[in-house]
């Protein structure tokens, strides 16, 4: 597997995801500068990492979505290549049109960093096949603008097509849209593209891979990706 992590000015979790990839899969990703126009030859997985690209003073991810490298990312996705956007990466995917909807300010208007419980809604995506269907996993969140929203039509389509990959749930394993930590519509934490090759999610699987630092529920996500690409 060849992985590339895109570095925008203001990205700050590129090291976290790079070290998680290495920790879990043994693969050291290349770091690709936002102003470049090409991905390294043979790139299988593109990661848009967390952070505050361009300071996120405008709509989160709006400027990064227009960075030079994003044409190559869009082309990679169109070819069916895997794209994983985490946190700011998810915001960039939405702003760049690779995923529908948008992430707005948390309903409580505060940044929130805590462990969140998530239900894995689909296990037939390249990112989730190592999870048991319906598994409840624990990833941390760390965002101020993770409140997923979209128009009613889009939400209906996403649900109808089963494109919600991760959903926030309460301690009892059930979703409660009135209590969800950031106010996300339908408690959505992560969605996939129509062809299932692009995943955007707000929580951080990359921060839960090392038993020394806490839970390790994020490992299976990286194992899933590596497993798919090895077989390919």
């Amino acid at each position, binding site marked *: 597997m060849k992985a590339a992590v895109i570095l925008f*000015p203001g990205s700050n979790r590129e090291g*976290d995801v790079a070290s998680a990839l290495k920790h879990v899969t043994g693969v050291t990703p290349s770091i690709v500068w936002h102003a470049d126009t090409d991905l390294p030859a043979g790139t299988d997985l593109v990661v848009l990492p967390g952070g*505050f690209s361009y300071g996120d003073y405008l709509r989160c991810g709006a400027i990064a979505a227009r960075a030079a490298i994003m044409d190559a990312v869009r082309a990679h996705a169109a070819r069916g290549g895997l794209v994983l956007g985490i946190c700011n990466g998810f915001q960039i995917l939405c702003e760049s049109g690779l995923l529908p909807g948008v992430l707005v300010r948390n309903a409580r208007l505060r940044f*929130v960093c805590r462990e969140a419980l998530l239900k894995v809604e689909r296990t037939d995506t390249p990112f989730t096949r190592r999870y048991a269907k319906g598994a409840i996993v624990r990833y941390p969140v*760390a965002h101020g603008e993770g409140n997923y929203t979209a128009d009613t039509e889009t939400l209906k389509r996403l649900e109808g097509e089963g494109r919600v990959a991760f959903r926030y749930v309460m301690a009892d394993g059930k979703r409660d849209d009135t209590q969800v930590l950031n106010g996300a519509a339908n408690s959505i934490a992560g969605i996939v593209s129509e062809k299932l090759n692009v995943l955007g999610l707000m929580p951080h699987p990359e921060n839960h891979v090392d038993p020394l*630092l806490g839970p390790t529920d994020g490992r299976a996500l990286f194992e899933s990706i590596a497993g798919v690409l090895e077989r390919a």
Partner: protein
Amino acid sequence: MTSTEPKITPELIAEHGLKPDEYQRILTLIGREPSFTELGIFSAMWNEHCSYKSSRLHLRGLPTKAPWVIQGPGENAGVIDIGDGQAAVFKMESHNHPSYIEPYQGAGTGVGGILRDVFTMGARPIAALNALRFGDPKHPRTRHLVAGVVAGIGGYGNSFGVPTVGGLVGFHTRYDGNNLVNAMAVGLADADKIFYAKATGVGLPVVYLGSKTGRDGIHGATMASAEFGEGAEEKRPTVQVGDPFAEKLLLEACLEIMEAGCVVAIQDMGAAGLTCSAVEMGAKGDLGIELDLDRLPCREEGMSAYEMMLSESQERMLMVIAPGKEEQAEAIFLKWGLDFAIVGYTTDNLRFVVKHKGEIKADLPIKELGDEAPLYDRPWVETPKQQRIDPASLEITATLPGALERLIGSPDFASKRWIWEQYDHLILNNTVQRPGGDSAVVRVGEGPKGLALTCDVTPRYCEADPFEGGKQAVAEAWRNITAVGGKPLALTDNLNFGNPEKPEIMGQLVGCLRGIGAAALALDFPVVSGNVSLYNETNGRGILPTPTIGGVGVVDDIEKTATLAFKAGGEAIFVIGETTGWLGQSAFLAEILNREEGAPPPVDLELERKNGDFVRSLIEADLVTAVHDVSDGGLLVAITEMAMASGIGASLLAPEDGINPFAYWFGEDQARYVVTVASGEKAQVLRQAEAAGVTIAKIGGTGGDRLNIPGERPLVIDTLRERNEAWLPIYMGAGLM
């Protein structure tokens, strides 16, 4: 010099915070009347914040050396050797006055300033902490300040990308008009690649890097060196505005040009901006500096030399670049989208010369600007000693369980989750112990080494007895590092006091510094950096003396750190150290009986060391399953915190006859730890305690879901935790989520 600038009048001099005798000193020094720009420069260099004129004399008494100290006080941050060729670089600094006037920007730029201090030295920041003090929760401004300060700290640190892993938050009416924001940053560098402010070489380019200069923050340092009266809010324009994105770029660009060997000397522009950084670089290197302000990147048009020299715009650096490296350095900065401008040169004449639009705006002796700053031996009086409180003399109507419930639900003890959840405490994937424990622990590189980090001080103790209070602040930081299994290495102090021109306030400063010095010496825990914030007074009323101690220790193997949560039922609970039932200045006395009285607990430094070394040896030998230091709130609060962190209950033994149970359970005797021991290891622990000459007593066992105090109603742990978690979110109007 131009004639359009204001005339120097006594009023203008006073507005610059300079006393008549200080102005006289300027006249003697330069032999003429200063220009307007020069007056501004003197005001910036000679205010309390930059010159330490009231505290310098007494700071000299602090122990600052140890074999592992690479750089002590006097640079941007302290540097210690943590083994394997690595160094920890750290400092704590206040941003009190700005955070009161404009909490979001004030606190945010406080974080930005301390991060810059750390990466200026070539270190990548790996952790941030903060110590916050707010006024009475009932004060109408407190809620606004908590919300703004916390959002500001988070807004800056989260975007910059450093985990905020720990700190402390307290409330007291004496901070009503002066909240404290003490921000600490810790960075990691190669021990042989530390960068300093000292310029070397004549005729080398002085380069300006980072964001453009605007009119924000002019006179910020002077404002921070004055008391507040009515209308403090009108000083908002003196508060700087932060841009964490620019700082993140500045970090990456600085580390990149350092790596490329471009940097001879570097100094960040913090308090007093361009003035202070340029003078320090020159003076430390015995060189003059000549600046040409026409080349300064400005954000606003028509800025005067005076404004450019005093602006405290954030995210700016000054460097001396190695010969022939200008182009390489410039290319790196342009790649990161930052300004790069050669604004001057080093000279051999020891003058600080500022040119603007063809005129010389300032021409001053560079060494004397710093060295000849006023130094005051201010009169001081010792704080009168208070009597020891006899528990028998107290009329206590509360019950033990009732008092415990009130304490853990009170503002100072209530969980601060609502605050630290607004800080990204996980970024960088190295946070081994998250907020809420005795110390935060972060992994260094790939491990197995880690750093244990903490902030501590008990202002009530310092007010009652500055010497013991100063000792206690250091001892508690040392103890908190020990409690996770760390070896304490060095500390940074952030000294927050009222108006030093009052002998009783000066007495607090002197007493606390002596206490800090005594403890730092006895515990081999030297002071390597620090900051002094005086004039924390409003309408003549000062804050509680608050010398915040930031401690750094090393953990050899992060897999062997201890945490405070109980691990299992059926384990023995021991207290290590003497319990005499010291209630003077205790949280119990203050919160339950509404009395802040008596002598605070004395700190026996030898005992601290003995007991702490013993606890660390137990952790290293894997003989204890949970460890918590006993601090304010005493034994019962410590045990309750261990239970709440785990959901596991405890059954406690009755104290020996003859001791008042309230004093026993809530007394704040120092040098104590609570540990839990699995049944198979008990005999071994007792044997080792005896061999070490350490006092140890079994006080109960873990198990169940309740806390059972002999003869009292049982307390359900989940209910205690709900109470502990409830106060802050409800106070902030946020509900329980």
